């Protein structure tokens, strides 16, 4: 055994062509990591849309993982280890890795043709631009072919095992054995023996290479100890999967069928894919002809007594806006998931952003308020999904869940919840027929606390009624064009959404005191970097607290009180300042808006700077 360096946390980035299998390599590395008890967070960074020609910079696919023996909440600012499968991968990633990082290069891909394709006029390995990095080269392609040559594969099939070879080496570098991955390979290719054996051979060869070759002269294996997790049963989870499972759990807790109606779009499709595997949980999925049909069929399903769910990203959500208004007017429960991506228009479909908050809160005709909740981490998606269904069923209203491209694909270790401990979801069941009241009116006799009306579905004996998008009489539920009634119904709709605040928990502080100088307010997937940044600044003794919002419309009842306890509020978000607008409106405050729209998560270091600067700029006399 060679000597080891022990680190608290380390950020690794794998980069190569879309066809090089980076995502698979990354996720398998993480599976081992998880099992060993590290905390981690991942960030798959796909190329834009189409599989690009081999070797081009725009075709580079990357997978970043941050693993640690300490608590990890982001995929890390600056990778300490970069694996670059070709010159393009090096070119694209060099700017973002840490100075002094270890770079593992697949040297046989550094042909002059590939260098040109990547836009290099000189070979970076000799041009001096890698000075200061710990560069390690290996002929991964050739070595892989050698490892599998006895199995009689074609050159191209053999070449496809490159990522397993590299994974073997990576596992060695991090002082892990290849057992888990071997098992996975054996399972996955159980029916394709040659492929299985080739992958196993490559994996082993890569691992052995670390031990045997002179590489150990340059690289010392890095050990990252297990993190301390609270006791429990754990698994790794991605955001999209957690959302799917959370929705299915909610259906179980409400004892209703769930009907998911969607239309594929990046990065929301993952939800459709995952839910279409959950049939045994009474979940149906329907791929509609477009987003409008998707939301409308989900509304039809809700009318039919199932929890209707639809999902899309910004452009698709835009198409659903009219129908969402219909769900509001008909007072039907509907979950709308928005997996946000870079806008406007088609924008940056594979990049992450939080720029659909305005759309969620305000993006409809008329005064059409809807509860909006947001997810902060992969595992959190599970709980937010349940909460959204709970709200929808309690108040009989559509609910929007905001998540984003980053969360959809990111993974983290996650304690499997005790499902029995989750409170059942109450539904506004059909009442008994009351002969003194018109049937139509029975369907619109609302719970005064929640505004929720009974959920009466076709098939229910003797409670037939009609719903629609035209304004209804507040008492009878029949069409009404009366002005005062419309006014009363507008209030009812507003109050229904406001009443959500009576049922959700109070806003908690993530960190810090309830009064002080600076309060940072975040929402959504920026949780990880903001958490780390605030923590770091607090460790310098600074007076900064942190609140992260799950409930965006309505806000938790005490949010205003919390805000009032601080001299200044800072709102970091991956858009041009949308939550900021909301806070100004609701609380008449003037926060510092910190925005970033680069399609990438915040860097902890940048946020730290912003917070520190804000604290500095505040007049000392201004203390609370």
């Amino acid at each position, binding site marked *: 055994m060679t000597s080891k360096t022990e680190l608290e946390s380390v950020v690794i980035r794998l980069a190569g062509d879309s066809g090089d299998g980076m995502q698979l390599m990354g996720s398998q590395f993480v599976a081992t990591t998880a099992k060993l008890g590290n905390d981690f967070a991942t960030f798959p960074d796909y190329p834009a849309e189409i599989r690009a020609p081999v070797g081009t910079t725009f075709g580079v696919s990357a997978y970043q993982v941050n693993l640690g023996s300490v608590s990890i909440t982001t995929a890390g600012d600056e990778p300490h280890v970069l694996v670059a499968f070709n010159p393009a991968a090096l070119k694209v990633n060099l700017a973002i890795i840490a100075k002094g990082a270890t770079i593992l290069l697949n040297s046989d891909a550094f042909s002059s043709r590939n260098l040109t394709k990547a836009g290099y006029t000189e070979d970076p390995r000799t041009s001096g631009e890698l000075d200061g990095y710990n560069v390690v080269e290996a002929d991964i392609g050739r070595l892989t072919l050698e490892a599998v040559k006895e199995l009689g594969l074609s050159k191209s099939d053999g070449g496809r095992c490159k990522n397993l070879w590299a994974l073997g080496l990576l596992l060695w570098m991090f002082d892990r054995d290849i057992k888990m991955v071997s098992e996975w390979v054996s399972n996955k290719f159980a029916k394709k023996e040659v492929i299985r054996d080739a992958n196993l051979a490559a994996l082993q060869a890569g691992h052995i290479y670390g031990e045997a070759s002179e590489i150990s002269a340059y690289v010392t294996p890095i050990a990252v100890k297990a993190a301390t997790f609270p006791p429990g049963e754990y698994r790794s989870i991605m955001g999209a999967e957690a959302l799917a499972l959370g929705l*299915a759990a909610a259906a179980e807790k409400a004892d209703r*069928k769930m009907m998911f109606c969607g239309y594929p779009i990046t990065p929301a499709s993952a939800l459709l894919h995952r839910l279409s595997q959950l049939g045994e949980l009474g979940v149906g999925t329907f791929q*509609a002809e477009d987003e*409008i*049909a998707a939301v409308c069929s989900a509304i*039809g399903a809700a009318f039919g007594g199932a929890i209707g769910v639809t999902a899309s990203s910004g452009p698709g959500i835009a198409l659903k806006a009219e129908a969402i208004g219909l769900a509001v007017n008909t007072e039907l429960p509907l979950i709308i998931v928005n997996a946000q991506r870079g806008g406007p228009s088609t924008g940056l479909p594979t990049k992450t952003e939080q720029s659909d908050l305005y759309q969620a809160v305000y993006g409809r005709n008329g005064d059409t308020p809807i509860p909006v909740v947001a997810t902060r981490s992969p595992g959190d998606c599970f709980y937010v999904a349940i909460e959204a269904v709970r709200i929808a069923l309690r108040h009989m209203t559509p609910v929007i869940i905001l998540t984003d491209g980053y969360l959809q694909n990111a993974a983290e270790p996650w304690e499997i919840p005790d499902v029995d401990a989750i409170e059942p979801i109450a539904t506004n069941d059909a009442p008994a027929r009351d002969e003194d009241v018109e049937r139509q009116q029975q369907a619109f006799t609302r719970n005064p606390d929640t505004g929720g009306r009974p959920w009466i579905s076709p098939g229910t004996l*003797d409670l*037939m009624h009609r719903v629609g*998008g035209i304004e209804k009489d507040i008492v009878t539920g029949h069409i009404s064009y009366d002005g005062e009634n419309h006014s009363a119904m507008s209030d009812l709709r507003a109050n229904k959404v406001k009443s959500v605040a009576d049922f959700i928990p109070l806003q908690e502080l993530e960190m810090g005191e309830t009064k002080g100088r600076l309060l940072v307010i975040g929402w959504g997937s920026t949780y990880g970097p903001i958490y780390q940044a605030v923590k770091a600044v607090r460790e310098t003794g600074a007076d900064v607290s942190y609140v992260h919002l799950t409930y965006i419309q309505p806000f938790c009842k005490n949010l205003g009180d919390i805000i009032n306890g601080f001299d200044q509020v800072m709102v970091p978000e991956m858009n041009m300042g949308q939550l900021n607008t909301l806070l100004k409106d609701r609380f008449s405050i003037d926060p510092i808006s910190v925005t970033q729209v680069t399609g990438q998560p915040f860097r902890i270091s940048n946020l730290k700077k912003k917070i520190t600067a804000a604290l500095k700029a505040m007049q000392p006399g201004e203390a609370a």
Partner: protein
Amino acid sequence: MNAPLTHKDFTTSQEVRWCPGCGDYAILRVVTKTLAEIGATRENTAFVSGIGCSSRFPYYVESYGFHTIHGRAPAVATGLKLTNPELDVWVVTGDGDGLSIGGNHLLHALRRNVDLNILLFNNEIYGLTKGQYSPTSRVGTRSPSSPGGSTDMPLVPGQFAIGAGSKFYARAIDTDKVGLGEVLKASHAHKGASMIEIYQNCIVYNDNVFGGFTDKENVKDSQIKLVHGEPMVFGAEQNKGLAFDIKTMAITVVDANKHADEILVHDETNKVIAQLLIGMPRPQFPVALGVIFHQPADPFDKTYYNNHVSGMKRTGNIKDVLRKTTTWKVD
């Protein structure tokens, strides 16, 4: 409540709000009557409509009803039917609602063959928005949005339906109680998407546009009522018949007495003839009414359930599913 229901049981308390003389009234009467006749129950019947004069329909039928938004009724109905496959789901739509803004949803409901009874009220005009021309309006229609006459080629609903892969297409006239009642029953009996085009007179904005074949004096010579297995004859004296001319690959009108052997016998499963019947130009040909095309096939809601792992039932539980992956314990 065990007495058989009558059309009155299918009538709501709501005052009907169409223009006096509108063809929609006649259709409403036949529909509620038919519901009673086929033994439908009110709780297992749902009417889903879009927006338009015709789409007010659900308010007047004592069953479950959903007056959705413009053009989207087939999509809402699909979700409802998938969730609740035992329901009888009727879709009410207009030529604007179903063929203009809602064309895509109608297309896909027909293609998928969702078991919906789709009533297309074709008045060749946008009634509710006060008379603009619609996708079925004839070339030259003068309307507020086409003061010089429209130039768009109209869509032929039957051709559209068959192009979409529909397995059932029938036609009727608003005021023809018997004919309309029959196709409603046939549509109800058909499992899968059935499309019924109803020529409906908008007395305000497009009055008498179907007069060529609905005016009393014209009826016999300008209408042909198709009955599966019966020869295609029409005319005041039943003296005309339809035949197929192989040379021109077209339908011709022949003397029913002289050329009785050439006369086509209606076979509702024959798509070629169905398409020709749909396309017959007026006034040279009579308008074909009744069930024009009908080919049984498994409806989408059925194949969907057959193919669903558990038939939409909860057979597993989330606890287990959460653990269908690598898990580890921390103590």
